[in-house]
């Protein structure tokens, strides 16, 4: 860079020599030499310029690549709660547009600021050599400009921040509209979404115009100042030429140098804007980096090797998502190794919240969760999770093939294993009917297959990883009774030797369970085997009766119960 700027600066100097040599002294030998020098310098300057650009570019792009990877790494390690409370669109724009703002600063900004500064210093130095008093004009006008630019930065900075946030909002509206498109379509919500978007877009526009106003106020000053400097030089410099203090050549060179300041001056303005934009972006990225994870490895975390026995104990567990609304209120639960238990309860009673604590999506505020007698906080997080297969209530599939979705937890699974898992999940026959078989793309969230098929892909995914604890959270809600029955039979084999927790609303299926926990308001209110609970004639019995298909059967059950008593 130094070379390229230097070479460019020397050229006008040579031109001065040429003019003096050719027109004043008429020294042609010297002239040819000078022309040759210009030619060589032009080539060198071009080549160096290229190299300097590319090398700074490589550095910048590499840094940005790393930054973006770091942001993503930091994001993926965040607590689950982090994502529950943040707008997806805002997170999206942070990792894309905000990083992009930093990229612009690094790739273009550093180059132009370096080049600009060097040109400035070089020119001032050369001007100094030509005539000191003329330089004073430049400096006197330059210092106030510097302050002006600082003020400019102070004013646009907050505006850019607002812009970034608004931009995130914009992207969030698009994101949400698309994710909920079926609701939007079904409730003629198009005008609603449109007006939301238009409003947000309008706000974004207004913010843009506010910064435009600042720009219009401040930036022209820079160019005007340069113009006035030139005017000053014409007057005083012209005077100096007339009084013979400097040569015409010097005068021309001086003016030429001043003109050369136009470009770096524009760079300054440009740089300022980029700087402030990148600063706003960096602040937003900082938020991602700075939010600490609550769920993390303890200092001497135990790495689980081999399999856990699968004894799970909840000891007086209190938990709340927001710290205000209690969700689990002193929950106690004891699950022996290899037991198959069911959790039952009304909506919102805390069933999902209970199982969410086992892979430590959240940590309880009070009480402990123990597996194999050890507080799960003491285990290495990842090795703990590897012991657990978890099929969550709202099925999530990735927008890739069926095969990759099934193998998500075990990327190195063989095709045989995948097919085996699909067979257990009662999925294989359906898959074989598809044109692309296991390579069928399921669409975003699995939109291109039916609800029951989605749930079974998620089950196959869980079956494939041979873990010691299996958690099924309401995973057959969209599956018909015939398929479910087949599924149950097949799963029974898989469950062998595992601790299994099933959450379900299909109460009749629970005869198999070694233990049934009835949860209400974040507490276990009844527990025992199917028989025990029926005999109790408590809540379980009530639900059971209400769920039966036929009043006659219900009667029969009741009869049977009374006989049993």
């Amino acid at each position, binding site marked *: 860079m130094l070379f390229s700027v230097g070479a460019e600066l020397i050229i006008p100097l040579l031109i001065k020599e040429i003019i003096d040599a050719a027109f004043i002294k008429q020294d042609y030998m010297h002239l040819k030499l000078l022309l040759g020098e210009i030619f060589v310098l032009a080539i060198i300057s071009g080549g160096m310029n290229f190299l300097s650009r590319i090398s700074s570019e490589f550095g910048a792009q590499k840094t940005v690549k790393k930054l973006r990877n770091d942001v993503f790494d930091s994001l993926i390690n965040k607590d689950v709660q982090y994502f529950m409370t943040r707008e997806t669109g805002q997170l999206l724009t942070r990792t894309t547009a905000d990083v992009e703002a930093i990229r612009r600063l690094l790739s273009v900004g550093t180059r132009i600021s370096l080049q600009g500064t060097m040109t400035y210093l070089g020119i001032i130095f050369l001007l100094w050599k030509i005539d000191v008093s003329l330089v004073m004009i430049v400096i006197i006008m330059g210092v106030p400009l510097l302050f002006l630019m600082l003020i400019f930065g102070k004013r646009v900075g907050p505006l850019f921040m607002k812009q970034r946030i608004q931009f995130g909002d914009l992207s*969030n509206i698009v994101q949400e509209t698309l994710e909920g498109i079926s609701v939007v379509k079904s409730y003629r919500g198009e005008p609603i979404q449109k007006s939301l978007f238009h409003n947000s877009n309008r706000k974004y526009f207004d913010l843009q115009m506010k910064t435009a106003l600042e720009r219009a106020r401040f930036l022209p000053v820079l160019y005007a100042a340069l113009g006035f400097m030139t005017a000053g030089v014409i007057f005083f410099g012209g005077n100096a030429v007339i009084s013979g203090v400097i040569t015409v050549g010097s005068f021309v060179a001086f003016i030429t140098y001043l003109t050369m300041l136009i470009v770096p001056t524009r760079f300054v303005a440009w740089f300022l804007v980029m700087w402030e934009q990148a600063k706003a972006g960096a602040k937003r990225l900082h938020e991602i980096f700075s939010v600490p994870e609550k769920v993390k490895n303890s200092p001497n975390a135990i790495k689980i090797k081999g399999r856990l026995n699968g004894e799970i104990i909840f000891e007086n567990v209190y938990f709340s998502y927001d710290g205000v609304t209690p969700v689990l209120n002193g929950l106690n639960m004891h699950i022996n190794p290899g037991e198959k238990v069911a959790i039952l309860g009304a909506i919102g009673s805390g069933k999902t919240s209970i199982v969410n604590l086992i892979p430590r999506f959240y940590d309880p505020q009070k009480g402990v969760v123990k597996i194999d007698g050890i507080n799960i906080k003491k285990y290495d997080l990842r090795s703990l999770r590897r012991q657990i297969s978890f099929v969550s209530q709202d099925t999530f599939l990735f927008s890739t093939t069926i095969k990759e979705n099934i193998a998500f937890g075990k990327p190195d699974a063989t095709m045989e294993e995948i097919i085996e898992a699909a067979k257990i999940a009662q999925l294989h026959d359906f898959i074989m009917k598809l044109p692309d078989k296991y390579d069928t793309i399921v669409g975003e969230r699995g939109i291109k297959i039916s609800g029951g098929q989605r749930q079974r892909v998620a089950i196959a995914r869980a079956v494939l990883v041979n873990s010691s604890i299996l958690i099924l959270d309401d995973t057959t809600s969209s599956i018909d009774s015939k398929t479910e029955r087949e599924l149950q039979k097949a799963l029974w084999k898989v469950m062998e030797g595992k601790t299994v927790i099933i959450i379900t609303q299909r109460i009749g299926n629970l005869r198999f369970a070694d233990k049934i926990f009835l949860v209400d308001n974040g507490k276990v209110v009844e527990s025992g085997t199917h028989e025990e609970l029926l005999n109790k004639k408590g809540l379980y019995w009530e639900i059971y009766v209400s769920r039966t298909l*036929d009043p006659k059967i219900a009667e029969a059950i009741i009869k049977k119960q009374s006989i049993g008593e």
Partner: protein
Amino acid sequence: MGFAQRLAGSIKKEERQYTDVELLKFFFSFIKPHRKAGIITIITLIITSILAVFTPYVLKLAIDNYIIPMKFSELWKITSIYAILILIGWIVDIGRIYLISYLGQVTVHDMRNYTFDHLTDLSMDFFENEETGKLVSILTNDIDTVAEFLRNGLTDIVTNLLRLIGIIIIMFILSPGLTLVTLLVTPFITFIFYIVRKYAREAYREIRKSVAKLTAKIAETINGITVIKVYAQEERVKKEFGEINEENYRANIKQNIIVNSVFPLIRSLSSIAILLLVGYAVWVNQGLKQPAISVGTIVAFIRYEGMLFDPILSLTMFYSLFQSAMAALERVKRITSHESSIKEDPNPLIPKEKKGKLVFDNVWFSYDKQRFVLKEINLQIDPGESVALVGHTGAGKSTIGKLILRYYDPDNGKITLDDVDLRKLPLSFLSKKVVLVPQEPFLFNNTIMYNLKYGHFEVTDEEVYHVSKEIGLDRVINKFPQKYDTIVGPRGVQLSQGEKQLLSFARALLSKPLVVVLDEATASVDPFTEYEIQKATEKILENATTIIIAHRLSTLKNVDRIIVMEEGEIVEQGKWNELIKKQGYFYDYYKAQVLSEMSGLLQLEEKNN
């Protein structure tokens, strides 16, 4: 050479869908409504350009007429003229910068609205085939690229072109010979531009694509975060993200190499032009006492030459931004020229009587034009009737619902509502009268009240409270400190699944539909709540035609008719008791459920019969 080949080889050939002319037309259609602002902007641009061309001329006058002839006493005059020109320039510049921003932003603002509007109006099949993240990226990042072009690129092009022309004219007036010599380098410049167009565009396309992929990957990671965490696949997802990021990095480097080789080349050409210029002048003046080309002229020429290359350099900058914007516009245009496969009839019909009679007349349907998901569906559902769809998973039950809402049109046959073909109905009428409660509830990241009223904001709070109470939702809501003002989180993640379903159900009830499709709407709801819902629904939807898709057969005891589907066909229909007696398909499901629900008790039931 080797490099260029490698470059060409590594750039994936991709169908170019639009010509530059088409894209520009598309682009200018957004500028057109702001013609006035555009014209004023151009005027300010012209004034600045004239000033920019004029000031060096004043400088020349100052040197040739005042400084060299040593007219010191009048030097202040020319200096003040110069200063006044600068002053005017300053004022015009303020307007120029503001107006250019305005023009750019307003254009992009309109383009965004237009694109979003178009997008939301597209039919469902479009969304089933697109990744949300990629579409988001188009509406945000890609359109922003266009904005950047307008702000930094387009602003300069008029100025620079005007300057270029102005300078060339003045140069010609001053000395045609010198001008021609200076312009000797232009063929090289044209050639450079030609090369750049091809490679830069490709590189920019790759950048845009990788940014979209990045967005999609992040969106997917956020949505699937629990799955990723529970299967401890963070490292793999990071790696996948890293690969896309690497793609983005490569594309950026590629683009930079291409664009950055242009600037230095043109700069070198500029220096060479000076060389030619001075050489020529010296050659002409050689041996002449009175130089044919004055010192002032040469100085002015060198300055003009500098000014000539300044716009050319800016034009390359413009050109690069232009290519970038074109690559982005291609993606925007792809969305906006996508036509909805569901079109409104130009002469829509509204049924005379709005009762809710639905008829499927020999309906065939497939998603992929390969596998028929619905085959020969003939079905009449009377006004106010409640029917249940039962069947194997993947039998096509949800698809029936989607056809009723016209997410898709049948490949063959027709569906009528009150004797009017759905394709003839105005779309707004259809969505006002027909409501679907989907398998997977979706809530907006807003208050519970907002979500309940979504699509029917005219509903009063009292009605909302009433319906909530009826179906047992108020119990849930009253648990929250914020009650109806509770924010539910993205997609409603801060609620339990059952709570979401309940909310989504209540929303449907509040919209007072004529036809309602309940697609496993209460699958995750506990029996007590379900019982409450059932009672309330019967009351509220008394007059509505109801289609219930459910797997828990206990919820179907009270429907008027049960329809059993198997592999896309209707195989059985009738009342609960009839079907049980018949011991056909439905009986199988019944048996399976009884078997698993009450194993051992079936015999008991059979005995009792």
